[in-house]
């Protein structure tokens, strides 16, 4: 009956069958001898990580595997080598690869802790300015002058708010580092 089980990676008949319980969920992996060796599954200490990587590559959303992070040029194959991502944007780029990994890795898949309110507010204000600038330019172009006047006033307010917030951090940055 052993022949009925195929290696999850290459499809040859599987001889290594692993069951691991992580966070109360059962995970089964079947591998042929060669793939088990290659993935380091025979080493019990290295198995957890191997499992994570396997799960990632077994994910049907293989489309992400060919892509490259537009921000930093990171490729999924780099993750297999390094076990770390290239930049914060990678988590968006490789979402399909990240989410199955998280199931086994953590207690949950959504953040419920501290939130950097100041940093987020600062970024939101800057984004708001950019958005309003675009809208104002469009309104002028299409001769919607009433809209333009309203957008101009909003833009003045938004710029003021953004520069106050930026001034705080710029002021902080202008202070020389002590050593």
């Amino acid at each position, binding site marked *: 009956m052993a022949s009925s089980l195929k290696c999850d990676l290459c499809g040859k008949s599987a001889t290594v069958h692993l069951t691991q319980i992580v966070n109360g969920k059962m995970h089964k992996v079947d591998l042929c001898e060669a793939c088990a060796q290659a993935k380091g599954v025979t080493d019990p200490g290295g198995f957890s990580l191997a499992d994570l990587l396997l799960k990632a590559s077994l994910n049907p959303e293989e489309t992400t595997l060919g892509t490259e992070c537009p921000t930093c040029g990171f490729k999924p194959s780099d993750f297999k080598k390094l076990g770390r991502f290239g930049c914060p944007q990678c988590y968006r780029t490789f979402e399909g690869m*990240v989410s199955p990994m998280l199931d086994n*890795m953590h207690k949950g898949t959504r*953040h*419920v*802790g501290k939130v950097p309110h*100041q*940093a987020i507010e600062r970024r939101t204000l800057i984004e708001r300015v950019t958005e309003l600038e675009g809208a104002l330019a469009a309104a002028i172009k299409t001769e919607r002058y009433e809209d333009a006047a309203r957008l101009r006033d909003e833009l003045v307010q938004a710029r003021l708010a953004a520069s106050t917030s930026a001034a705080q951090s710029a002021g902080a*940055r202008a202070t020389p580092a*002590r*050593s």
Partner: protein
Amino acid sequence: MKISALLASPSELTDTASSKCAVVLMTRIRLARNLAGHSFPGWCKEAQREAVLERCREALGAAAPMKRSVNVPVSELTELQKQILVERHLISRELSGSKHGGGLVINRDQTCSVMINEEDHLRIQVLRAGFQLKKAWSQIDSLDTELEGRLDYAFDPALGYLTACPTNLGTGMRASAMMHLPALVISSQMEKVVRAVNQLGMVVRGLFGEGSDASGSIFQISNQTTLGESEEAILKRLGSVLQSIIEHELNAREKLLEADAAKLFDKIGRAYGILQNCHQLSSSEAMNLLSLLRLGIDLGLFPETTRALTDRLFIEAQPGHVQAAARNELDSSQRDALRADNIRTEFAAIARPDFSLHQKS
């Protein structure tokens, strides 16, 4: 402040007499943070790493809790200084080996250290002697909040703080306690404890983190997961696991005393004899002997005042600290001789263990 002055001044770990807790030597919390719009240090071009280093050093220099701290690029430190910082748990081995763009900011009392461009742009750490999860959290939380006012952290509403390794996503927080568990080691229960602790989602490591041995029966216990639970919930869970390990250790001590007190006292008495008379002492032997001595203090065989000494020597018996006390460079056997000299001198005035307390009962 200069690094040389910092290393010579009193530190939380080496000069605190406040560690009253018998089992927990120290508590640490670290937060992993990254700047939005920059590649993580391991995937970064050198110039970008340098730019991140500058930004972070400036922000930290301006943060009130880090006033008058040491604030230097790692490249300005000598190998020995780096080794001492590793031995004091203020920087990691990884940062000490970094070539470009690594930086380090440490406050005066050495309770707070920030590594720049280690695995993440920022690794903020607070370290407290004794069992102090709450105190450590409130200190690190306020520094982190202040830094967030000056730096744009990489954050995602669903994934939390974005980190180079997905195992740190979410809170980016690793809280740990350094625990002295000699009775669990002597009674061969550590393996069982490690397994139980793992099942509760916590990790057990040796004294210097991953892959290090547990000489001196000292173990680090920390949370494994960072996503899906708030900081407070993680700390609460860790706190209760630590509490139950403390209870197990104390029970194991009672059992050892009941079953064969002579055997235990023999170990402690011999440790005292060696510490007082040795002329060659390796750091791992020193750790094991000091560990037995600390157990002796917990059992009331030595006066409570001896505790500060053993806790300081746990750090000062490390190779870098021994070398720093010498005038010229030593090889390892010269270090063993100097370590023995120092410890012999320190123990000359320590009174013999008083076993009478236990013999009566």
